[in-house]
Structure formats: C-alpha cells, structure tokens
C-alpha cells in the first residue's frame, strides 16, 4: 500500500477512535444518570 493509502487508513481510524471515545462517554454518563434516578 502507498503512503497515501496508509495515511487515509490511519486518519479514518483516528477519527473513529475520537468519535468512539465521545459516544461511549456519553453512553456511560447516560447510564450513570439513569442509575442515580432509579436509586432515588
């Protein structure tokens, strides 16, 4: 694979990583809030 091919692959994975971190964080926070509401 050419350097351009590698750069494209790593760029996609980088943004996928950042997006995944963000989404999972929101999901965990949502779970925490829901858990707190239930416990009250």
């Amino acid at each position, binding site marked *: 694979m050419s*350097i351009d091919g590698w*750069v494209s692959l790593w760029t996609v994975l*980088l943004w996928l990583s950042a997006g*995944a*971190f963000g989404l*999972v*964080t929101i*999901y965990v926070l949502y779970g925490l809030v829901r858990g707190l509401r239930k416990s009250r």
Partner: protein
Amino acid sequence: MANSTLTYLALFSLAYVVAIVLAHRGKARHASGLTEFFVSGRDLGLGMAIATLGATEIGLITIAYNAQKGFNEGFAAFHIGLAALVGCVFVGALGFVVKPIRRTGVLTLPEYYEQRYGRDIRVFGAIVMAMGGILNMGLFLKVASLFLAAMLSASGAEVNVNALMITLIAVAVIYTCYGGMRSVIITDVFQFVLLAAGLIFAVIFLTRLIPIDQAVSLVQEHKGVGGFDPFANESFGLSYVLWMILVAGVVSAAIWPTALSRALCIEKEETVQRAYLISSVIFLSRMIIPAFLGVLAFCYFNIPAIGGSELLSGHGSDADLVATPLMLGHAMPSWLLAFLAVAMFASFMSTQDSYLFCWASILSRDVLGPVFGTVDNEKAQKWGTRVLIVVIALYELYWGLIYEGREDIWDYLAVSGSIYFCSGIVLLAGGLYWKGATRRGALWALVLGFTAVAALSPIKTALGLEAISSPMIGFAAIGLSLVGFVVGSLTEGRVARQEKGAA
C-alpha cells in the same frame, strides 16, 4: 503560568476527591461478603461493564507507552490499535473464553483451574499468573510519575518524582484496601469519563496547533515510509503485527486477568459478549489517541518556529518517554493542563487499583487460601488481600527504582505479561473448549509457558538470544506450552483409559 496551573490543579483535584468520596459513601452499605469484595456483588449492567473494562485498560501507563511508540515510530504505531480492535471484536463476537468463564460462576480465574484441573494447578497457576502480572505492573508507578512530573514541570510547576511516586501509590492502596472491587469499579467509571474528555480536548487543541497534514509531512520527511507502514518499519514487521493482534487484542480482552475479571462481575451472561463487542472500539481508541499525541509531540519538537526543542534536550534516554507530557505542559493553557493532569492522575489510579486488587486477591484466594484452608473464610480472605496489596505496592516502588531494561515500555509490558499469558491462554481456552484436557497437560503447559521469560531484555542478553525478536520468543513459548498441554493431556488420558479397561 505555574501559579495558575497549580490553582486550577487544586480546584479540579478537590472536585475529583469530593466526587469519589461521595460515590464511595453511597455504595458503602453493600460492602460485605466474598462475592461483594471480589466481584462487586456480580451486579454490573452493560454501561458500567463497558466503563470499567475500558477504564482498567486505559491507564496513564497506556497513554505513556502508546505516546512513546507514536513518538518513535510515527503513524505506523497506529497498527497496535487496529490489532487491538481486531482481537477484541473476535472475543466479543464469539464470546471467546469470556462467555463460558462467566458461566462457571468462579470468583477468580485460578478458581476455574481447580474446577477443571485440580487444586495443585490452581495454586501453581495462581503463582505464575501473579508473578507475570506483578512483574508487568513493575514500571507503572515510575512511568506515571515521570509523565506527570514532566507535564507539570514544562508549565513551570516543579514536582519531585519520588515524592509523587509515594503519594500516588499511597492513595491507591488506601481506597483499594477499603472497598475491594466496588471501590475499583467506582473509580473506573469516574476516570473513564474524565480521561476520555481530557484526551478529546487535548487532541482538538493540539490539532489546531499542528494540523494533521503538517504532521503527515513532518513524519514523512523524518521517518520515510516506515513512519506509516508497519510492515516497512524496522521496529515492527509481520511477526510484530501478528503478536499485537494476539497481545493487544485477544489476550488483553479475554485472557489478561484484570480485564477478564470484569466478565466475572457482569450480572447477566448474555451481557458479557455485548460489553466486549462495544468495548472493542475503546481498545482501538486507547492505543490510537495516545499514539497520535506521541506523533504530535515528535512534530512539536521538530518545528523550529515553536521553539520547544530545548525543553527535550537534557532528558537523555527518557526523551521519547517525556516528549508528550512536555509538549502537553508547554503548549496547553493552564486550565486544560490542570484538567488533563487530574484526568491522568485518575487514570493512573483506576489501573493501579485494578492491578493491585487483582494480583493481591489471586495470591490471597488461590495461593494462601488453599494452602492454609481459608478459601471460604471471609475475614482471612479480605485481610490477606489487603496485606498483599500493601506488599505489592512496596515492591512496585522498589522495582520502579531499580529496573534498567532497554526496551520500549510497551514491549516490556508485552513480554512480562507473556510469562503468564503464554500458558494462560492454553489453560483457559484448552480447558473451556477441549474435553480431553487433563491435569498433567495443564502442568506441562504452565512449566513450558514460563520460557517466555527469555524475552525480557536483561535475560535475553544473559542467554545470548539478542538476535531473536521478542514476538518470536513469545510465539515459541505459546507453541511449547500448547504442545506440552496436548501431549500431557493425551498421555494422561490414555493411561486413564488403559487403567479403566484393566479394571
């Protein structure tokens, strides 16, 4: 800048400590019983399971070693994240090891060894497991302290590394001893949210300073094709990539006890696979984002206009390790630096507590318990675990001061961990999926898997094996362990069948 950083640091630290104390107090009423202490009452839902699984596997050490890889090898280091994703998707999609082990209802992994192979294998397996694990965490404290001290010193706030090491380990020991697995999981959730937010802010801020296109050009200029292609990079190659799929993916998710013990805490068996499948993207992120910070650090110190190169000079062989924290401390505004420092501190804690608790509980429950007949004695188990947490912490302090291996931090972790997992993967997968597995096979696998120790830098040098790469030694150790397992099991099975036929 030092004063404002310290003010923000004090504020964020206070908020973090208050939040953790409140969370612990809210859960204190649950703290009794062995199941509560060792597997957090086995009541984790999907969200908590994902957070604790992710947080355990993203510590300050993870950030440090991936940043070091990114700094040294450029974008090619991203392949470790891709390998982790592939391995974890495999585990999540098939439920490899994690699903059947949850079904067994054990509290620790060596307990499964006893169910499947007998009590002596439980004790021997637990010793090998704890030895590999404790050796593995030997550098956590030192690296974390260097990282935090470098980050703060770059902003003008000088910190004594040894004093920081003692403080960090003392805090982790106190609350892990106090609340067992429940404390570990509460801290994990807080840490995960803090660290994910901190890293995303840092990436956004730094890519405005060094755009990705500029980073690509600089890496191409200084590292050539090896900065992008892991197969063309002299430090990697095909065997390294395959080794990463095994180590960073399959082993990290399904064999490594700190991660696998999370499967034992999940309430419903059917949730286990989903938790691992969703967590696979975290296994990707935990490698790629810190590696990217390392790439940016490499660029940061190679752009003359920024003027940061003098910061790095004088750090000698630690330069690649401290480059990223120095960049963070030098480039980021005070409030973001302080927030990230607290997030990093939290990430250190969440990994540290998991590891301390995991190895101490295994030694207490699976070595001392069977030897002294205290497996079901709650008081003895809890106090045994607490004392061992302190002992392991003291060892870590000592090891942090004396080890002088020459490998990258990640390679040290992979090799020291392999002392356990080369036989662990054989015993767990073999026991769960092959009916013919026997005690003798398990014993031979444990003994032969131990040959992985030859890949540790000082031992490799002493044995004259420097020409052989660590991944090749690791694969050879797994192969030997597997051969021992199969041959031992088959010969014992044949003898048993002959005795049965004669009777």
